[in-house]
């Protein structure tokens, strides 16, 4: 796919530009020129920019990480054409390499382009790298790849099916999305924030059944043959055979040694095997005296298994249950089935061993935890009975923030907080001397003996009505401005009452929050509450989308962004609609209650008072619940408007 040579000017030197799948070459036409030939790896290219189509000058700017190369096309009549050709070739090559980088994450499918230079590795995520290190099965790694997860529609659909809440959210958001945002764009955005869910789901799905004890599963089928004799047939699948070999190495050994000779056919081997004493032993059945003997297979009865975690591993004395066997005076006759030596009745032993073997396949050797124990000092340390130790030594990693001074040292005056600026206005000498005076004991009611009469300083007098400062209703502690004019004595009656009431109100608010069900919906009906929940979650979804897009700095998606902003505005309307619905519901309920009171009055002649404020719900409740969301929406649209205004002005100036 190498493009034709094109004549370009680079750094004021004439030359030609060619490009193949991996590199972009520029070679000067005059070999003796000061500018050396240039070779750019396609994988390193981060961006391509070209001059506008109407522009007379035709140039291509290639951005490579921090550098950029500008090539001006000089061909008299075909400059534009050449430029387009080169750009297209490059674009294709970049796309191929990007796709290659994604697929090369599964090592089986190696793409040479990505592996060749470091640029391709940048696409790998951290989880990828970790997964690569941990996973022993390379074919599973695809599940860790973000791009594959994002594009796996089957997986996404199945995740949506399994999670109803997510499905609802997805559908609702899809319905409300602005028209400027296409469905693929939207889904890509939606899933990009939920990769972890996808990954978890993928892993869940890729779980498969482990091994099972295969021998008991193989049973004879008895068919009455043509001659009236029952014929026993045995059906085995290929998998079962391999499982038998895997689980019972002795069978594999027997098969290897007997099949060409004396058994010509594997079928004969299997039929003999399933009638043999060996099978009985392997299944853990008792071998009866009248069981048929088999000269070919019986030698394997004595076979000692050399592999398997339990039989080979060195067992340290500290955990070896049989370690002191020779020293014990008594014999645990009741438990003798559990002993390895008792092969006469080994079924439990055998089952244990079998389970161990199966489990050892499930969890492959994953490092130190399953390594042989009791081998060296380090492993002995691990074996120590830790719960008996008094305490362990700290095993912590000290982390230091490096080069912090570089940043903090540079903080200028503008970084000072409002408090610090106020402090700076004060004269340190005066501050200190006033405080030194302030803490003299005489200010704390020290009498001639030096005893502090704290009651005098506090000035609390329960009879004191504080008429002079009590002009505020209820001593409202929030009313800071008017309180400042009237100097309030510390510890005055008003102040203490105000404190009490503010504490009590916070206590009762706490209690309201703590009590669960009745106020859980804040007086809203379940249906309104659900609508509110879904409105809230879609709004959050769009906010996510907005910020990602807004901060992406991608100029090609501005129309998408405009659409999103209008959607955010509409979200406000939707919230408002829910509020109105709630208000209507609340009014209905009030009407009903008033009607009941009226009825009651007409029936009994007694008036009953209802506390209308206790009903709750309504628009106020909705507003209270979505206040943070509305705030977030306002902030988002403000940020957008501000940026829009600035950039409109820039465009106006620039154009």
């Amino acid at each position, binding site marked *: 796919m190498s493009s034709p040579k094109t004549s370009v000017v680079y750094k004021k030197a004439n030359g030609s530009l060619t490009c193949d799948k991996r590199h972009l070459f520029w070679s000067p036409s005059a070999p003796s020129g000061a500018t050396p030939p240039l070779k750019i790896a396609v994988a390193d290219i981060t961006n391509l920019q070209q001059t506008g189509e109407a522009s007379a000058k035709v140039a291509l700017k290639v951005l490579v990480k921090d550098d950029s190369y500008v090539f001006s096309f000089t061909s008299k009549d075909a400059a534009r054409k050449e430029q387009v050709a080169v750009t297209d070739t490059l674009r294709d090559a970049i796309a191929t390499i990007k796709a290659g980088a994604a697929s090369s994450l599964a090592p089986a499918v190696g793409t040479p382009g990505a592996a060749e230079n470091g640029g391709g590795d940048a696409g790998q995520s951290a989880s990828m790298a970790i997964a690569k290190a941990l996973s022993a099965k390379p074919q599973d790694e695809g599940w860790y790849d973000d791009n594959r997860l994002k594009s796996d529609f089957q997986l996404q659909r199945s995740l949506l099916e399994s999670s109803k809440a997510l499905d609802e959210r997805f559908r609702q958001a899809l319905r409300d999305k602005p028209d400027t945002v296409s469905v693929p764009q939207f889904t890509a955005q939606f899933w990009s924030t939920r990769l972890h869910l996808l990954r978890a789901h993928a892993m869940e799905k890729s779980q498969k059944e482990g091994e099972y004890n295969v021998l008991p599963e193989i049973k004879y089928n008895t068919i009455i043959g043509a001659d009236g004799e029952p014929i026993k047939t045995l059906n085995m699948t290929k998998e079962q055979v391999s499982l038998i070999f895997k689980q019972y190495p002795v069978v594999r050994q027997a098969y290897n040694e007997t099949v060409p000779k004396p058994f010509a056919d594997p079928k004969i081997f299997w039929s003999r095997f399933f009638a043999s004493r060996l099978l009985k032993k392997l299944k853990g059945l008792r071998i009866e005296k009248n069981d048929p003997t088999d000269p070919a297979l019986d030698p394997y009865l004595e076979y000692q298994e050399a592999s398997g975690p339990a039989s080979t591993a060195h067992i340290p004395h500290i955990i070896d249950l049989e370690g002191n066997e020779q020293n014990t005076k008594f014999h645990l006759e009741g438990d003798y089935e559990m002993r390895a030596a008792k092969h006469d009745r080994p079924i439990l032993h055998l089952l244990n061993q079998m389970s161990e073997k199966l489990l050892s396949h499930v969890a492959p050797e994953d490092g130190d935890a399953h390594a042989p124990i009791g081998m060296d000092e380090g492993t002995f340390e691990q074996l120590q009975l830790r719960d008996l130790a008094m305490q362990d030594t700290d095993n*912590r990693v000290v982390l230091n923030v490096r080069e912090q001074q570089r940043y903090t040292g540079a903080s200028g005056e503008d970084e000072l907080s409002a408090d610090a600026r106020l402090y700076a206005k004060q004269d340190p000498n005066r501050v200190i001397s006033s405080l030194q005076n302030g803490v003299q004991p005489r200010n704390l009611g020290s009498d001639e003996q*030096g005893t502090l009469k704290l009651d005098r300083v506090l000035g609390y007098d329960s009879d004191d009505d504080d008429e002079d400062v009590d002009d505020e209703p209820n001593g409202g502690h929030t009313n800071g401005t008017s309180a400042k004019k009237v100097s309030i004595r510390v510890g005055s009656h008003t102040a203490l009452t105000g404190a009490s009431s503010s504490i009590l109100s916070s206590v009762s608010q706490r209690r309201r929050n703590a009590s669960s069900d009745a106020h859980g919906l804040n007086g809203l009906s379940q249906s309104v509450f659900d609508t509110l929940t879904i409105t809230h979650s879609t709004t959050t979804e769009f906010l996510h989308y907005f910020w990602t897009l807004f901060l992406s700095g991608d100029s090609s998606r501005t129309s998408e962004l405009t659409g999103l902003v209008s959607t955010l505005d509409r979200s406000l309307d939707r919230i408002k609609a829910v509020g109105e619905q709630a208000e209507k519901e609340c009014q209905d309920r009030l009407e009903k209650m008033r009607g009941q009171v009226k009825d009651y009055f007409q029936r009994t002649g007694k008036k009953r008072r209802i506390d209308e404020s206790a009903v709750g719900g309504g628009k106020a409740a909705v507003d209270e619940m979505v206040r943070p969301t509305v705030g977030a929406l306002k902030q988002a649209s403000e940020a957008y408007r501000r940026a829009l205004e600035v950039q409109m002005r820039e465009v106006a100036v620039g154009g």
Partner: protein
Amino acid sequence: MNAVDATDRAATQEEVEAPSLLTIILDTNPHAWALLADSLPLSKAVANLLVFINAHLAINYANRVAVVASHSERAEWLYPTPADATLEQAHSNGDGENGNRAGTGGAVQPPDDANKYRPFAQLEYAFMTNLQRLMRTTTPAAISSAPSTMLAGALTRALAYISKQSASTNPTTTATTHFNYSDPSSVAGGNSLNPSDDTTTTSRSNQRLTTRILIVSVSGDLAETYIELMNAIFACQRLSIPIDVLKLAGDPTFLQQAADTTNGIYLSLSTPLARAGMLQYLMFAFLPDAAARERLVMPGEGEGVDFRAACFCHKRVVDIGFVCSICLSIFCEPLADGTCLLCGSHLSMANYGQKPVVVARPKKKGKKKRVVDGGVETPGSGRETPVPG
């Protein structure tokens, strides 16, 4: 032995109330108190605090108290008087430097007044002498250079004191209160180290010292020591020591988190009227100890905790920040060389945090530049995690 003599001693033991240690951290930032001089001078606040401490001591004869001053450039013990300070005091008092009556005694010799409960008098004397000394030894240069207060240091001192006191009070339980950092199960089990969670130790837990910390704070600007402060807060959480906060002035950011994390009470007295009622707030909200709090609905602002963090690089409090995906360090802007300052991982950003482009502008050659920062200060919800490359 209880079983042998057939008396039920355990039952009588249950009625003994556990002693409680109240550690008060008094923010003595001189600038901040000078600003508050109109509504609540330091002397008044101290008087209120002393009444509160006396109330605490009066509730149970075994109750103890400790006061640390979180001063502008250092943290200092106010009560109990540290050993080296008592020596120095003995010297300086010989000169009669202050000329006050309280200062003429020996090491700690409060005035003997028959009308005052002796522990109160002792505490008041020691507290006042130490506070005066603290103010006397403060230089103008020191307070002009440090706008903030050494809260992290004070918290650390308080924690050290608390663990020392608990160790000497409950020698039987110290072995279990030591946290085994190497045992993974103890991490997974949660944050509580309180042995009384264990049903077998309930009878012993009565004798256990219950501890709490009260921070009387007047200044903000704690971001400078964010990491140290948060470490202390999490240590408190782990040891189940509630941190109560009485905020008289300043920016609440981290203290609100401290109270929220450790199940303490946060009260902010932002108006002069509220500050005038300080005594009532102290007595009403902060006096109940841990045992009493289990049965009470506690006051405090339950909602709207400011959970913002300070970045590790510039110590700014951030709305939107960048978090290292390996070690979770917080940064306020993308790092220049893309290397995490804490763990050294190489991080790279996807195209996030760019300067917003909202107007599709006609392409001008070479005009568009990639702007790395900008947009970072834009507030909003959510954080973007940089992906290591």
